[in-house]
């Protein structure tokens, strides 16, 4: 079964939290660029 696999067994909860935090920040930057360019053209 696929969900029984732990694909990243060496990743500690702290590292996983760091990964998530960085991903959210980068996604927000991308969203800001998207909205910013549309607003600039208004």
């Amino acid at each position, binding site marked *: 079964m*696929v969900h029984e696999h732990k694909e*990243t*067994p*060496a990743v500690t909860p702290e590292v996983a939290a760091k*990964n998530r935090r960085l991903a959210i920040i980068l996604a927000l930057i991308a969203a800001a660029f998207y909205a910013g360019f*549309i607003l600039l053209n208004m």
Partner: protein
Amino acid sequence: MSEAVSHHDHHDHKPSGMGRWLFSTNHKDIGTMYLIFALTMLFIGGAMAMVIRAELFQPGLQFVTPQFFNSMTTVHALVMIFGVVMPAGVGLANWMIPMMIGAPDMALPRMNNMSFWILPFAFTLLLSTFFMPGGAPAGGWTLYPPLVLQTGAAFPFLIFAIHFLGISSILGAINIIATVFNMRAPGMTFMRLPLFVWTWIITAFLLIATMPVLAGAVTMLLTDKFFGTSFFSAAGGGDPVMFQHVFWFFGHPEVYILVLPAFGIISQVIPTFSRKPLFGYESMVYATASIAFLSFFVWAHHMFTVGMPLTGELFFMYATMSIAVPTGVKIFNWTATMWKGAMSFETPMLFAIGVVIMFSIGGFSGLMMGITPVDFQYHDTYFIVAHFHYVIVPGILFGLIAGVYFWLPKWTGHMYDEKLGKLHFWLSTISVNMLFFPMHFLGLAGMPRRIPDYNVQFTEWNMVASIGGFVFGLSQLIFLYLIIKCVRGGEKANDQVWEGAHGLEWTLPSPPPYHTFTTPPKVTEATAHS
């Protein structure tokens, strides 16, 4: 073999059946899916190129209507850029980055699955437009309004496909950045990262900065078409030229998004087969970053003929020229790496040398077009087509192919057929030059791009280009056969595979176990690439 691998070897279980691929969060499986997807799209986009070259074999209209011809050029470009080069680069990154930095997997494995599976969905949307009233998009991949707004029922499908492709790329980029920033093995400092990893970090930042700009541009097209806005409609107070500015603010960095991973690959291949460390590692890193930085200040060289103020044209001309400096550093460093090296010429090295030489041809014609006054002569001619195809095919595609040959024995555990590999290289190299070099002459003689018919004076070179195109297309079947043959069996590859190979990925068995580096390896100056 590292302790990390042996620890996990004896319970290297992997899921089976379709579920392994549909729900995969394993970087190697997802990398494989990206690469298979890119190869499939290469043949779809290649088939469109064959239609184009068949139609252009002689003047007059032979096989297709002008509308369908324009759809071919438009969708060929979208498929090759977003369906071949970008996914192939991400596939190689998925496979190699965790193994190169000593990580067990990508940082965000579920998101990795999602960013891949968006792609087949997006391309189904795009390719389904061929069966819609009004046909597939035919206004060129640059989507300039007002022309693109004349697209029929396909228009919203085109826009949503591009949005999905953008989302997929951004998610992939976020994953790569998080992986390299947070998952490096102890001792793997930034200045010890393999160049392929460096080029991918920089590419990932370019993606995050520019894909939202493309998304914004196409969202504005969508609202102009369906919601009564006038972003790019002169009649409503908007400006169609503004679209070109916004598009190329994405479009020029996009060129480096495509090319930097290929540069990274040949920065791995050339030192291996020269049996020397890469010359000027640090300068390579800084040159890559400089190219990426400068790429944000040159966009308007794609639109010198729209009627910008002279100061603007001069600014963009000089900024464009300045990119030649870091690019020159790279070419110099690759050449210096080979200098007095104990070189051997296996297929990956042949393709890498091909990149250095033929990318430079594309680079030089790029410099010519960057000179504003002469660009007025070249603009929208076949000279442009020659230029960007030299950059993308023997530049970028050859780099990606070099990477596949380089790492295929590591992935499959088998050596590929070297004779077939060399045949693939020589046939591809001869035919790609037959295909694209004559386009310089056609462009200089005034043949416009994106036309299904032409003046008889252009006939001979078009025939040469078409024959080159057909041979190039058929040569890629050798590549396909070679890959299938290598996956199915062959001479066993050892762990290091290549005599001159250095780096963490070569310490793993060939093929590597399903899970690697579950305990991080220790990286020292001696084991690092630099």
